[in-house]
């Protein structure tokens, strides 16, 4: 872990969450493209410590592409500032080392041929050796099933267990920002409660969470604010009050930009 990241992590962990503070992550003019086809056109967003921002929108709105561009695995541009430093031109692994953890759609950050323990070890490798056991305990306390499935290959876990492992893996380096793409996709409703508890615990710990979701009712349970993407642009922003009516919110983006 770099000294800059350590400072960020320490200050976030020590301080009580205060959403009025400067944002932990601030993105400006985010674009994403596949070859020459542009799919996200200059999105601005920011997330503060202890806050969860939901990115809503229909299929093809550009949610995954935008998160991928922020994480550095999809070509794009724009500023991605963490703790004031622009990491928008860095490689994906350098962004991860500077406190940005990304859990892609379909748990694409796990290693199916490796055991649960080995997966978590991979996630912990950027931490100082002295901090690893405490972080491992934090992850396993959050998702106790991973302790039970310690020796199982990640590829044989259920979808819910894989999602927990994917989040645990991303938490291994004690990030400042956790970015998740459709974490509820294809999961049993019982797992929703586990994820909700986990996200609340992470918010209480002071992490900034940025999450793309199509499941608006689930997003409304956990989000503090939201943005709706349509055709690669922000069509609406809002807060807690709107999230109290998830059906109405879903109607907004299912109706497209005309609403």
């Amino acid at each position, binding site marked *: 872990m770099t000294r800059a990241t350590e400072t960020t992590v320490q200050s976030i962990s020590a301080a009580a969450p205060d959403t009025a503070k400067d944002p932990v992550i601030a993105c400006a003019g985010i674009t994403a493209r596949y070859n020459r086809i542009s799919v996200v056109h200059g999105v601005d967003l920011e997330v503060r410590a202890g806050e969860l921002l939901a990115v809503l929108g229909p299929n093809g709105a550009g949610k995954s592409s935008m998160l991928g561009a922020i994480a550095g*695995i999809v070509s794009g541009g724009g500023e991605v500032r963490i703790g004031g430093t622009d990491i928008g031109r860095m*490689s994906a692994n350098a962004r991860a080392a500077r406190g940005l953890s990304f859990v892609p759609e379909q748990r694409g*950050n796990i*290693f199916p041929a490796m055991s649960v323990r080995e997966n978590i070890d991979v996630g912990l*490798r950027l931490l100082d050796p002295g901090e690893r056991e405490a972080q491992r305990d934090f992850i396993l306390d959050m998702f106790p099933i991973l302790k039970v499935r310690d020796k199982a290959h990640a590829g044989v876990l259920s979808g819910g267990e894989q999602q927990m492992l994917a989040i645990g893996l991303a938490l*291994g*380096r004690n990030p400042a920002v956790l970015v998740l793409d459709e974490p509820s996709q294809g999961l049993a409703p019982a797992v929703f409660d586990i994820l909700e508890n986990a996200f609340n615990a992470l918010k209480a710990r002071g992490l900034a969470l940025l999450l793309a979701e199509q499941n608006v009712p689930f997003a409304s349970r956990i989000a503090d604010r939201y943005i709706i993407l349509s055709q690669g642009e922000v069509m609406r922003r809002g807060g807690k009050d709107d999230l109290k009516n998830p059906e109405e919110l879903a109607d907004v983006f299912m109706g497209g930009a005309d609403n």
Partner: protein
Amino acid sequence: MFEFIEYLTRGALVGVTYGLLAFPVSLLFSTTGSVDVALGAYAVLAAAVLYVIGGPLGVIVAIGVAVFASILVGLISLRLNRPGHIDHIIAVLGTFGLATFIESFILTVFGTNPMIRQPFSTFWDIGGIRVSPQMGINVVVCLAILSALFIVLQKTPFGRAMRASAVNPVGAALNGIPVKQIWFATYVLGGFLAGVAGVLILYTTGADYSTAFNLTIWGFGAAIIFGMHGPLRGFAGGLVIGIVQALSAGYLPGGWATAIPFIFIFVILSLGRMNQIAATGGRV
């Protein structure tokens, strides 16, 4: 029967060197999805350098030259590919070009003469089979290196990072693993192992400029026989290739002796082994 056992023994002893070449083939394939066709050329280059310099210094320089050549290939590969945006054909053609260049270089500087050194004038007698002590050294060196690499891969953070990069390069990058550097390290490791193989080959069967391509094919064949899954399988594959070679040389006319190991590899490929590898990204 005694003759058959002798061929088996000699083949297996020669095959350990192919097992050493098989390791980087399988490791590079599973890590990057590509093949370094220049591996055999590194080995012959190392043999040629040691042939000229000789002694312990020659061994160090020979392996160093092989590593240097692999660094060039690694840099070219990094330039051509990045995680998620890979064109294997370009990378393979790049290594093929370097292999041809090295062969031409060896031909120009060292000529067509075979290069071989025989450091031992006495032989071991194992059940009536005369075996050079160099064969014993080859077995010890290969087993020691492959065991060490196996432990590194399975038990160390670097090994885990290497395996993670092989299984899921994008996921590895998201976990902070510098995948491109891991790829580069894999190429360099391949150069080191090929250099060691070249040194052992010089002291065993010898080599000339044209041996490079054969060594690549035999290393590749050794790697695919039991699946590109790990060094131990590649090592076992190396023994099989060595034995097939020895039996061909012992029982068939000279022309066939060279062709049979290749035919054997084609048979393995035609049985669908390679399709299975391709379908699983090398994780069979």
